[in-house]
């Protein structure tokens, strides 16, 4: 009776094949693969002067023709975007600047840094720095953005490029990477096939009336799509040939048969829409590799409602007796292994924001259909089963919850939660549909929502969502408001000059100063993002991705240029709970109880409570804290959250993109905490900010999980269209029996009723995590929930590990 985690003892029921494959996936360490960098560079060198769309398509073609392909032992689903399992591609067209800065840095180099460490083979650094990077320097999105924007915007709007690197705005992701963060129209892909979409492009291109001026742009777009698709079809044929060749040399008769089947399926889907479940999975995976890793290199290319669009294939095969349920599960498991063998190379800063190599491929099951009826099907259950069995990083399994969700699906999902890998996460339909309807999306489209990456809502298949665009450190904004825009840590002015403490006569003055700082940060974020969007479109459009986002083919326009039906940009606020706690503290001790003057409080904070531990503890212990169902502070959290959301939602991007606010933290609460001085809630300088997004600051909740849920549902989730995130840690003892599991299911249903949006659980005791820190090799497979994604605990950097350990565990004894 001393349960610490159910994860380690879980006896999964998988075939020997899947066992071998998952074992390999867990044990393989990420490495850097330079093939893509080489091929893309060769192609771009030869295509100078051509249109950016054509250049991108030609580069993809050159890559698909020349990259090495492999089929590993035991695989049933094949394909690769790098030269081996867990190889991270290098995309110099986006990343040249940071690679140039960091590749040889003794602390920041990808093979030296503490987070997301990669193996780099001998000679590879020299190859990159001599053969690849020189061509790209001066040609990247980052270069152009820095060239054009005023210095103050860079200084105050890009944390990692400013002289003072503590500014509250972090837009690095799209500055240094492709875009990702999308759910394409997989249904279209599976219905039309690669050949069908290519044919569609050819037909439209042929019929364009080129006397109409705007049709010429379309002609270029469709030409690039056609180049890409022809190359894709040839690339798939390469796998067919490889499988056939392997079959010929294979001594194991059974494996030879499998390889022949793979070969036949590949040939078939290169020229036809898939017919069987197996072919559908294979075609789907090829598309996935193209979308992430080959055409561009950013994560969160999310499968979306996989159980919905795959179900017809499954049902058909079962009815025709050409597939058993067990075979289906094994195929799904093989696919999940392939997804988990993809890897991502971030720059130093992004790697600390998104620690843990997660591709955040959110695959969501259940929920209602377009007409509002529950759409859970047999495949929904099989996907949970497969994820439970494989226990791998990907996909990021998610379950939609609504009033008509069958109890059994929530029960099965909760049984997976019990394993303590933090999967699946849960999304509440009521809140989600209201949140997404807050933009101009129809009810039918809203009901068909899915989630990109961690928690970001989008309709399925028709949206360029840019959900991971910018993170804003709200706690830092409050710091700047307390002393006229001056950073406590660097002692430099990096915000608006909103007044010295003596100018802030009452609580409303502080709130006003804070709001001005937030507005300023948001404004800088918007300017930087607009520049990024402009140059992503001008320099590196994505014709293949665009062909699968509804709107682009209809308009003949790349998604980076606003071709999609809906275009968003996510600007996400971090540290809302810290701001609420700190404002509550200032309100109480300075203005209500008049225990201390504001300027003295600010001096104490600037000195990081040095010689004032007593006062710090008083603030920490005796002032109401968010997360305890206390209206005094929860009302502040609600108001600040609303203000932030309204501020972001007021802006539009260059292609009509609507800026959407989010309130979640990924793992950025740790690096943001490092650059935030002491806060009036009693948090010391450098400590992490609240994790999750709307989870209470670590150790500040005293009224259990119900208090947390009540506080979290007082946040006006509906306004935060880019998503909110609530982490809960439960003691394994709360999930011992089936009866216990049923109660947590009911807890989620109550959360749904209260208007909550997202919730996820870590069910693991600290003792196990401490053991894993000491003996990482033994605990390689131990998975925990970081933010909207799970990661292998031992692959996280030490600060993030500590942050997870410090989160309060809820449990009844």
């Amino acid at each position, binding site marked *: 009776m001393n349960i610490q985690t159910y994860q380690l003892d879980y006896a999964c029921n998988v075939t020997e094949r899947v066992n071998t494959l998952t074992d390999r996936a867990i044990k393989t360490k990420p490495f850097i693969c330079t093939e893509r960098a080489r091929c893309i560079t060769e192609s771009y060198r030869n295509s100078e002067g051509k249109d950016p769309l054509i250049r991108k398509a030609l580069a993809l073609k050159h890559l698909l023709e020349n990259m090495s392909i492999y089929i590993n032992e035991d695989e049933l689903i094949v394909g690769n975007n790098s030269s081996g399992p867990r190889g991270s591609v290098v995309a110099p067209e986006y990343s040249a600047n940071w690679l140039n800065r960091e590749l040889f840095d003794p602390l920041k180099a990808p093979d030296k840094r503490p987070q997301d460490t990669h193996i780099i083979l001998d000679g590879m650094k020299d190859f990159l720095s001599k053969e690849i990077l020189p061509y790209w320097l001066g040609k990247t999105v980052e270069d152009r953005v820095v060239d054009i924007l005023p210095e103050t915007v860079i200084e105050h709007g890009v944390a990692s490029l400013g002289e003072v690197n503590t500014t509250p705005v972090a837009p690095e992701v799209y500055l240094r990477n492709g875009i990702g963060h999308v759910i394409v129209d997989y249904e279209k892909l599976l219905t039309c096939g690669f050949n069908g979409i290519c044919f569609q492009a050819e037909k439209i291109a042929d019929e364009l009336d080129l006397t109409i001026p705007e049709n010429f742009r379309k002609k270029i777009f469709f030409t690039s799509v056609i180049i890409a698709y022809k190359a894709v079809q040839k690339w798939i044929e390469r796998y067919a040939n490889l499988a056939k060749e392997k079959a010929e040399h294979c001594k194991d008769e059974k494996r030879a048969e499998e390889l022949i089947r793979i070969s036949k399926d590949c040939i078939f889907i290169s020229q036809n829409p898939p017919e069987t479940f197996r072919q559908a999975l294979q075609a789907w995976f090829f598309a996935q590799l193209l979308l992430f890793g080959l055409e561009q290199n950013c994560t969160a290319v999310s499968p979306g409602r996989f159980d919905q669009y795959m179900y017809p294939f499954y049902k058909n095969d079962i009815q025709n007796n050409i597939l058993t349920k067990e075979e289906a599960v094994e195929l799904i498991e093989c696919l999940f292994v392939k997804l988990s063998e993809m890897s991502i190379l971030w720059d130093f800063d992004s790697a600390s924001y998104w620690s843990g190599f997660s591709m955040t491929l959110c695959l969501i099951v259940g929920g209602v259909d377009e007409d509002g009826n529950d759409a859970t099907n047999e495949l929904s259950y099989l996907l949970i089963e497969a994820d439970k069995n494989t226990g791998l990083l990907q996909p990021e399994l998610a379950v939609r919850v609504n009033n008509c969700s069958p109890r059994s699906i929530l029960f099965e999902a909760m049984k997976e939660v019990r394993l303590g890998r933090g999967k699946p996460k849960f999304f509440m339909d009521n809140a989600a549909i209201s949140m997404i309807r807050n933009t101009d999306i129809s009810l039918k489209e809203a009901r068909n929502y899915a989630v990109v990456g961690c928690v970001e809502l989008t309709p399925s298949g028709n949206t360029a969502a840019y959900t991971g665009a910018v993170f804003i450190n709200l706690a830092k904004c409050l710091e700047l408001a307390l002393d006229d825009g001056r950073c406590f840590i660097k002692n430099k002015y990096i915000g608006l000059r909103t007044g010295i403490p003596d100018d802030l006569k009452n609580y409303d003055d502080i709130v006003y100063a804070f709001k001005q700082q937030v507005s300023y940060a948001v404004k800088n974020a918007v300017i930087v993002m607009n520049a990024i969007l402009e140059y992503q479109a001008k320099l590196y459009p994505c014709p293949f991705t665009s062909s699968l986002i509804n709107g682009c083919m209809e308009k003949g326009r790349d998604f980076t240029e606003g071709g999609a039906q809906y275009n968003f940009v996510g600007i996400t606020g971090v540290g809302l709970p810290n701001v609420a706690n700190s404002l509550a503290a200032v309100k109480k001790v300075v203005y209500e109880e008049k225990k201390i003057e504001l300027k003295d409080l600010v001096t104490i904070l600037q000195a990081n409570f040095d010689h004032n531990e007593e006062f710090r503890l008083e603030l920490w212990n005796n002032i109401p804290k968010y997360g305890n169902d206390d209206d005094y502070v929860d009302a502040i959290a609600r108001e600040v959250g609303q203000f932030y959301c309204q501020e972001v939602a007021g802006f539009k991007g260059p292609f009509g993109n609507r800026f959407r606010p989010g309130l979640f933290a990924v793992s950025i609460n740790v690096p943001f905490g490092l650059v935030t001085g002491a806060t009036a809630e009693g948090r010391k300088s450098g400590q992490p900010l609240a994790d999750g997004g709307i989870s209470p600051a670590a150790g500040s909740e005293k009224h259990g*999980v119900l208090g947390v849920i009540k506080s979290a549902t007082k946040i006006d989730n509906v306004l935060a269209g880019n998503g909110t995130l609530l982490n809960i840690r439960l003691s394994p003892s709360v999930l011992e029996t089936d009866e216990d599991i049923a109660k947590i299911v009911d807890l989620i249903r109550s959360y749904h009723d209260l208007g909550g949006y997202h919730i996820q659980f870590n069910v693991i005791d600290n003792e196990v995590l401490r053991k894993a820190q000491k003996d990482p090799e033994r605990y390689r497979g131990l998975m925990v929930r970081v933010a909207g994604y799970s990661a292998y605990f031992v692959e996280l950097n030490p600060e993030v590990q500590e942050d997870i350990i410090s989160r309060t565990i809820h449990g009844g004894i």
Partner: protein
Amino acid sequence: MAESDQNKKYGLIFDIQRFSVHDGPGIRTLVFFKGCPLRCQWCSNPEGQLMGQQILYNSRRCIACNGCVAVCHTGASSMINGTMVYDRKKCIVCGKCIEICPSGARTLSGKWITVDEVMDVIEKDRVFFRHSGGGVTLGGGEPTYQPEFAAALLTECRRNNIHTAIETCGYADWKTFSLLLEKTDLVLFDIKHIDDSKQRQYTGASNRIILDNLDKLFKSNKKIIVRITLIPHFNDSKEEKEKIVNFVGSKRKNVEIEYLYYHKYGLHKYELLGGRYIYRY
């Protein structure tokens, strides 16, 4: 007495735990009553035993700021060679040191609160009872130790359509017991041991009243769950368990029996109370 007077009754409560999944059906809010007639050696809530407010002192959190020494009128708190010394014999639990303590090293166990105040907290959790079929469980300490307050609270819950349970050691006079019985939906009844001398040795009280009450309880039609905490070397042997099960079985057929397991999560609380955990096995 009028209803409103009942609701202004004060009870001494040492915690309200707002998320429990192991004390009755569904998700429950647990109200911990202070005061208990038993002194079980393994008690995991020792702060619930005494019917009176107590100061919990955590020396590890103390930062020796001298604040408590300055406000203490009785000399219970003093600073000797830079170390805080807290002498409980001199302490009158006036609570002044708790108000001043910044680090949370001192906390008060037991607050006098009204039925209405408890109901305010319970009401916040109602949404969690609905799907799960949960409700309120009175525990402790021992709810029958403050029977009038417990009765008033149960009445108010019933009036608000909230499922109730009491968690009891069974040691109370039958009149008190039957008063609460009328008002609760479920009784969680602890049995420690069948042998009276063993029970007395380890819990400080005879089990005759307890077993007698259980007997009477079975004659009512109340829903009862018998709970047995398995304490190593006290009652966890096969024979001892069987004795209890047989006893229960002889009184009523098909009674639900729940086993709870021994743990030491309460160990540090003895230290906070200035006491010592004496159970050894």
